[in-house]
């Protein structure tokens, strides 16, 4: 009734042809390993210490607790393997337990990772603004200078960023600076605003970390009312007040790390890493846009302009095309229709009798500060 097997004692790299015998003594049986031929006993492995290891099909590799780590009994052949498994049901049972343990480990790890992701998605906007609060303002300001320098270099072909009106004491520049100071007043921002109206045929406006705001001449030309100009400017100042540029940088770094963890590619070189990071970051920046819109609406509680003009101007510059709609899920910009609706709700209860942001003379000066620049096809939208 003995079964032929190969035996390694785990001490010496030797292989012995052995015969296995099962002795059922009392409650716990024993696997007796005898050398083929002379029948010398090489080992006695209690059945409850046995475990099966992964082997090829029709090959059963057995180890035992209490034996050297490498000690193995190897049974080959479908028939013999079936016989051993039938004699030692403990093997099947332990294998099932081990499989269950692995499944539990995988499930636990997955749940933990899912929790980390969920905490990240909901926690980072909060966390990022906390961390931003700890970033020294001077550092953020110097970062803004760097970004501005890089931007000027990249726009170098079209002549860099040339100021429309280089005189800081001109009527237009003073009016804009006063509006900026009033808009930022009370927000507790550590930054000094530096609003620059520059020549460019791209209709755009944006805020850099550290208080620099750029307003492109092409966008100014398309503004029909003070409301529109003041709305966009207040929105950009909102980005400065909330330090969104810095927040975006921090959340991008965090997202990269998280996606890298999921994909096991910490170098973040794969397309999947880029795509995933873009999708998550887009969510954050859409929240930031809403926040900046709300800031513009707050400014409109103190100065007399309609913040919904902001949406009108953006709409005129680049009407939502089908493509923008298609990518809305990926896009960093909320759809302007949605924004306008939200802004109109925010601007419903504005106090009356407020000062307008600019006097008629100032608004005329602002409108003409860039002189005549060639009208261009509107392509880029404001951020």
């Amino acid at each position, binding site marked *: 009734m003995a079964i032929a097997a*190969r035996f*390694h*004692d*785990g*001490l*010496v*790299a*030797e*292989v012995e042809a052995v015969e296995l015998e099962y002795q059922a003594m009392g409650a716990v049986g024993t696997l007796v390993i005898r050398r083929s031929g002379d029948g010398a006993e090489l080992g006695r492995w209690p059945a409850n210490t046995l475990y099966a*290891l*992964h*082997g*090829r099909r029709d*090959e059963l*590799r057995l180890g035992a607790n209490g034996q*050297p*780590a*490498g000690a*193995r009994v*190897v049974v080959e052949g479908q028939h013999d393997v079936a016989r051993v498994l039938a004699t030692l049901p403990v093997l099947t049972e332990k294998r099932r337990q081990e499989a269950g343990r*692995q499944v539990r*480990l*995988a499930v636990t*790890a*997955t749940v933990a*990772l*899912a929790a980390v*992701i969920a905490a990240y998605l909901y926690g980072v906007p909060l966390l990022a603004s906390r961390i931003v609060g700890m970033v020294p303002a001077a*550092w953020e300001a*110097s*970062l803004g*200078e*760097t970004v501005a*320098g*890089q931007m000027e*270099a990249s726009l170098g072909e079209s002549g860099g960023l040339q100021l429309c009106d280089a005189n800081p004491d001109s009527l237009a520049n003073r009016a804009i600076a006063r509006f900026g100071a009033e808009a930022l007043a009370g927000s507790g921002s550590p930054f000094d605003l530096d609003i620059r109206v520059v020549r460019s045929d791209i209709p755009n406006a944006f805020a850099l970390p550290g208080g620099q705001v750029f307003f492109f001449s092409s966008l100014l030309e398309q503004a029909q009312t003070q409301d529109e100009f003041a709305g966009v400017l207040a929105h950009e100042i909102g980005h400065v007040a909330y330090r969104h540029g810095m927040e975006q*940088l*921090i959340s991008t*770094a965090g997202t*990269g*790390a998280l996606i*890298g*963890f*999921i*994909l*096991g*590619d*910490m*170098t973040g*070189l794969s*397309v*999947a890493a880029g*795509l995933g990071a873009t999708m998550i970051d887009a969510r954050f920046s859409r929240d930031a846009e809403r926040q900046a819109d709300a800031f513009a609406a707050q400014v409109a509680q103190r100065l007399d302009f309609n913040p919904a003009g902001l949406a009108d101007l953006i709409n005129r510059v680049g009407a939502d095309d*089908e*493509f923008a*709609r*298609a990518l*809305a*899920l*990926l896009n960093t910009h909320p759809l302007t229709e949605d924004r306008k609706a939200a802004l109109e709700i925010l601007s419903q209860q504005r106090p009356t009798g407020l000062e307008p942001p600019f006097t008629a003379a100032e608004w005329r000066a602002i409108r003409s500060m860039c002189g005549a620049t060639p009208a261009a096809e509107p392509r880029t939208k404001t951020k």
Partner: protein
Amino acid sequence: MVWGGTEEKPVPVKFTGMRRELGGMLLRGYLLLLPTIGLYRFWLTAWKRRFYWSHTEIAGDPLEYTGHAMQLLLGFLMALAVFVPLYGLFFYLSTLSSQAAIVGYGGVGVLLWFLTGYAIYRARDFRLSRTLWRGIRCDQGGSAWNYAFRRFFWSLLVIVTAGLAYPFMSANLWAYRYRNSWYGDRQFGFVGSWRQLARPFYLAYGIVVVIGAIGLGLAAPMGALDSPPNPAGFPPLLVAALLIGLVFLYYRSRELTEMFSSVRLGGAALTVKVRARGLVWQHALFGLGLVGSYILLAIGGVVVLGIVAGTAFAGGQFDLDIFMQHMQGSLITLLAIIFGYLLILAAFSLMVELFLGLGLWTLVARGATITGLNSLRTVRARDEDKALAGEGLADALNVGAY
């Protein structure tokens, strides 16, 4: 032989793994990657190694892989401890002035290149120390930092010499790896040197230079290098690239043959014959498999898009506007795109595993014979190596290995 007693015949290494078995395992693994948010990759790696190890048989006894997925997962978590500060550094650098950022990125890149050497060595240590044959465990000594420094400075030298120093680097690293490898209490040896690599390498180097020059010489007058390039000049470049690929595979087969055949273990010696045409055949199969699977995916993709956005294809013509309308706000379409991307990725990695990974292992294992195996019967086990928890850094750095 006077002292050895009986004369021993060389023992061929057997490999009994089937492509179908590996393919089924990988497909199942890829499916499980989805619900586990990618974490199943540690289990998949463990399964894959069990497959390779258990099907590689020497003198009737297969290798056994004793590693567990959990060890890999823990190792990966530990590697994060290295990466999180690096990430912080990266972030800080990206906010500095342009020049400082470029210098900083360069520094981080060099650091990663250096760490890759460390990771490769540690990963090899992990695999060897979880490799069992005849009940005796392999192991690796030496120092991963030492290996990282060697590899780093050799690669600098290779760059400075335009590749000419490569045979020296390769032989040196092979020697360091094997002279620090152990089977039980017996240390591996390595008798190879750069001289064995010099002839095939410089031959291949010369041929690549000549082919490259001829390819460029033919393509340049046809306008392939102008801006914008003229496509008429591409065929000579493509042919040159293909020929260079063949020369590269020839050299690779020579290096594998020469270096593996220099591995010794006490009185036992390994001989490996890897034929260039075997490597070429595996790569050709890989190319065919890739093209085939992408054609299948493309057909599937068109069918799915036809169902999701059917009217865009009405009248046999693809209408972008209507197509975009269908995309509008449709989460299903977005999911279909992401899923499609994952499928393309999975098909690629499946073909790499099935044809290049399995192909190379098969070629090396089936080309291997061992002499003096009987001398290994006296090898004794060493103490358990408990120091290692996974090979996280290699995983995090994307250092590919079995």
